[in-house]
């Protein structure tokens, strides 16, 4: 199969959409939904709050879940793509080498209470993990995974989902999307067979009346979000301006930490390392980041991305040019984490707005 047709087929696989089935869930039954998931044998991951820090953790009771924040500090990508994961390990015995497959990848898993921007990250990354190499860790885990997302009714200044073609109530990636439409009721958009199957098993969902409307519920937040830049103007500018003084101007303050990539729901670069001891060892897959100097350094010592300005450009190019070129989607869901948590306020929104303004004004065109 050629690269092109394979890509097309995968894109079809991941984009298989259908008309949502509309149901309702009573707010008082939300905890029971999690309990059912646990009873049915799902490992349930949800945002968990510890002091000021909200991260996705495995929970054992619904009370542990924290659904009030705008976004969690780290994204749920770690459920499918842990920051450190053993691919296999081996033991050296006298007469043989015993290899153990350590990845427990087939357990049914539920992501509960993520935001639509996080849910949307999964189909975007499906394209990559099912591209030339079929990543069985991602694919197997994904098969057994149910995503129940909750629409946003609030946002902050770092959020920009509406600027990258999503919305606070986007259904992309969700098996079931819950939107609080009244004080005691969620509208549940059941998007996939997996979602339908799960909803049925719980017995907690009711048929929705035709009067329910999520648009009204999320209107205020959509207006607050507005549009922060013009997405259509980004790629054309990037196509032409790999070299441009703009890059140095907007990224000189970047200190090259991995925060933006590690809190990002769509950054997915990793490094394979061997951790060996005299009688055994393991092959381990660890997160890596294009912002690190060591990311591109050659064995000769030469580094094709010799400074932070070129490394930061790479991150933006990858998200808004290379990934769209290769895999047909923008590698960003507008969750705003990189903007929110950047120690130096590099601010991706500012950079993208700068680009879209320049392109509009025709600056930088030959």
């Amino acid at each position, binding site marked *: 199969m050629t690269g092109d047709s394979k890509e097309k087929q995968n894109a079809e696989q991941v984009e298989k959409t259908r008309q949502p089935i509309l149901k309702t869930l009573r707010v008082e039954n939300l905890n029971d939904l999690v309990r059912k998931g646990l009873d049915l044998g799902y490992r349930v991951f949800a945002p968990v709050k510890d002091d000021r820090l909200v991260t996705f953790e495995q929970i054992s009771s619904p009370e542990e879940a924290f659904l009030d924040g705008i976004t969690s500090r*780290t994204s749920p990508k770690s459920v499918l793509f842990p920051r450190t994961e053993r691919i296999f390990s081996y033991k050296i015995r006298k007469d043989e080498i015993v290899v153990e497959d350590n990845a427990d990848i087939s357990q049914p898993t539920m992501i509960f209470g993520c935001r639509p921007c996080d849910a949307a990250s999964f189909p975007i990354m499906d394209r990559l993990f099912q591209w030339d190499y079929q990543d069985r860790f991602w694919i197997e885990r994904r098969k057994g995974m149910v995503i129940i997302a909750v629409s946003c009714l609030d946002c902050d200044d770092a959020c920009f989902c509406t600027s990258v073609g999503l919305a606070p109530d986007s259904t992309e990636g969700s098996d079931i999307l819950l939107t609080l439409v009244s004080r005691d009721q969620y509208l549940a958009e059941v998007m996939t067979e997996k979602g339908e199957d799960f909803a049925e098993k719980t017995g907690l969902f009711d048929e929705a009346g035709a009067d329910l409307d999520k648009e009204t519920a999320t209107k205020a937040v959509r207006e607050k979000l507005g549009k922060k830049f013009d997405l259509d103007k980004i790629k054309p500018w990037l196509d032409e301006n790999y070299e441009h003084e703009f890059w140095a101007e907007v990224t000189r303050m970047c200190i090259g930490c*991995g925060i933006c990539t*590690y809190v990002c729901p769509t950054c997915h670069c990793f490094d394979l390392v061997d951790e060996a001891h005299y009688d055994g060892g393991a092959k381990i897959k660890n997160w890596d980041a294009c912002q690190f100097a060591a990311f591109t350094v050659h064995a000769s010592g030469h580094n094709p991305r010799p400074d932070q300005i070129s490394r930061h450009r790479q991150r933006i190019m990858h998200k808004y040019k290379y990934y769209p070129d290769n895999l047909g989607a923008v590698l960003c869901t507008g969750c705003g984490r990189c903007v929110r948590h950047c120690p130096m306020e590099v601010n991706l929104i500012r950079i993208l707005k700068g680009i879209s303004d320049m392109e509009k004004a025709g600056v930088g065109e030959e």
Partner: protein
Amino acid sequence: MIEQIREKAKELLASGEVKVVIGYENGGLPETTRPVFITSPDEVDRLVWNKYCYANLATFLWRKEVSSLGKPAIVAKGCDVKAIVVLIQESQIKREDVVILGVTCTGVGDPPLSKCPICDVNTPREYDCLFGEEIPPKTDINKFADVDEFEKKSPEERWEFWEEQLSKCVKCYACRQVCPMCYCEICIADKNQPQWIETSSHTRGNYHWNLVRAWHLAGRCVDCLECERVCPVDIPLSLVNRRLAKSVKARFGYEPGYDTEAPPPFTDFKPQDPEEFIK
């Protein structure tokens, strides 16, 4: 005060005495600022000074993306100046190669960061020009009260505490990247032939990285607490940094960042240095 800073910046740039002024501009998010590198006298109005000027800009003195611009002037709070002093002590920069625009500071953040109530450098100790009313240094502060408190815990409790805290580490190395003292061209964590520090975020890897980082800062960390401010998973890094600072102070009577002439304890020997570990 900002008017005077802008005026001075303009003067320095116009005269050619410096090529870049490293300061703060307003950030895009509310209650934030962003490091800014002003190279033209016409742009000095971008400079701001307020309680959200968190970043320790001293790190930009040795970063090539900024040092390549030419001789800098730098807006620096008392705690940031301490970092500049250590960079001078450690021969990373020469005193005459930087113009320090010292600002007096009553604390950054809202509420102020944990370093601010125990700050004794509200007025920077070293500067070329000072902006703001001089604030006499606080006396009778115990800088190590929280460390003392923590040390009352049993070794098991401390181990449990750190195991939990360090288990959160994602190895983003923001603590290293933001640190003005972490100027090694190749960090030990990036040496991979062989890999000295495991890159994995398992318990061993996380302990390994965080301990090495802390050790390398013993007697050097100026307590600007940028590492703790930026840590995306809220690891209380200052506790471990300052535990080492406490030892250095107790054993060598030395605190880094106060005197450009003072020899750092790890590069110096005094006959009265305690040697009770040699039995």
